[in-house]
């Protein structure tokens, strides 16, 4: 498994763990204290910032080629796919809000940050999955 695969796997693991924690905590608080308090627990999604540590955790080793033209191509394709999916999801979310809430004339203040958070989540998730698919899920790319 090369550095890019490790980063992609790390990102997916962090996202999965944080989402499970957020859903569990929000669910528990919602049942015990109600929706107002439960909404505050969504702040736990800030743990997704741990994704940013991937560059530090998986550093380039000195004197070793760990990123070449094929890795560059895979990264470029994955990024293109991720931003294409993001764009479609972003437009769909924006139009849904417009369609559903326009009669009220106002949009709740936490809608936009949540949209941005989910947008970032979509980009990182799709990019990571696309990277792993292109290398082959086995991780070693048929190494013998």
């Amino acid at each position, binding site marked *: 498994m090369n550095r890019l695969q490790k980063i992609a796997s790390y990102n997916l693991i962090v996202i999965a763990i944080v989402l499970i924690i957020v859903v569990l905590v929000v669910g528990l608080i919602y049942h015990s204290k109600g929706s107002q308090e439960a909404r505050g627990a969504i702040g736990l999604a800030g743990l997704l910032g741990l994704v940013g540590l991937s560059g530090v955790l998986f550093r380039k080793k000195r004197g070793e*080629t760990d990123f070449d*033209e094929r890795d560059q191509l895979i990264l470029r394709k994955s990024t293109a796919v991720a931003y294409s999916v993001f764009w479609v999801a972003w437009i769909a979310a924006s139009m849904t809000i417009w369609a559903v809430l326009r009669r009220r004339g106002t949009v709740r203040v936490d809608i936009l940050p949540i949209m941005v958070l989910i947008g970032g989540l979509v980009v990182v998730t799709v990019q990571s999955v696309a990277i792993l698919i292109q290398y082959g899920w086995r991780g070693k790319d*048929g190494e013998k």
Partner: protein
Amino acid sequence: MAKSEMQNQVRRLRFENGELTQQQLADKVGVTRQTIIAIESGKYAPSLPLAFKIARTFEVPIENVFQYEGKDS
């Protein structure tokens, strides 16, 4: 990645050149071992500069290493 229309003799040439390992070839041409594996198995068609580097490593013309199997036009 999709299988390419390129055939290659990298594996054979490695063995004919002192049983060069995939890692040794990768180090010589400046790529990862995974990329050599992908090239040998036809999963990845290298760029022209990389194809030339590989051919030069084996000291043979590039067409002795890579052959195009697709349609002409």
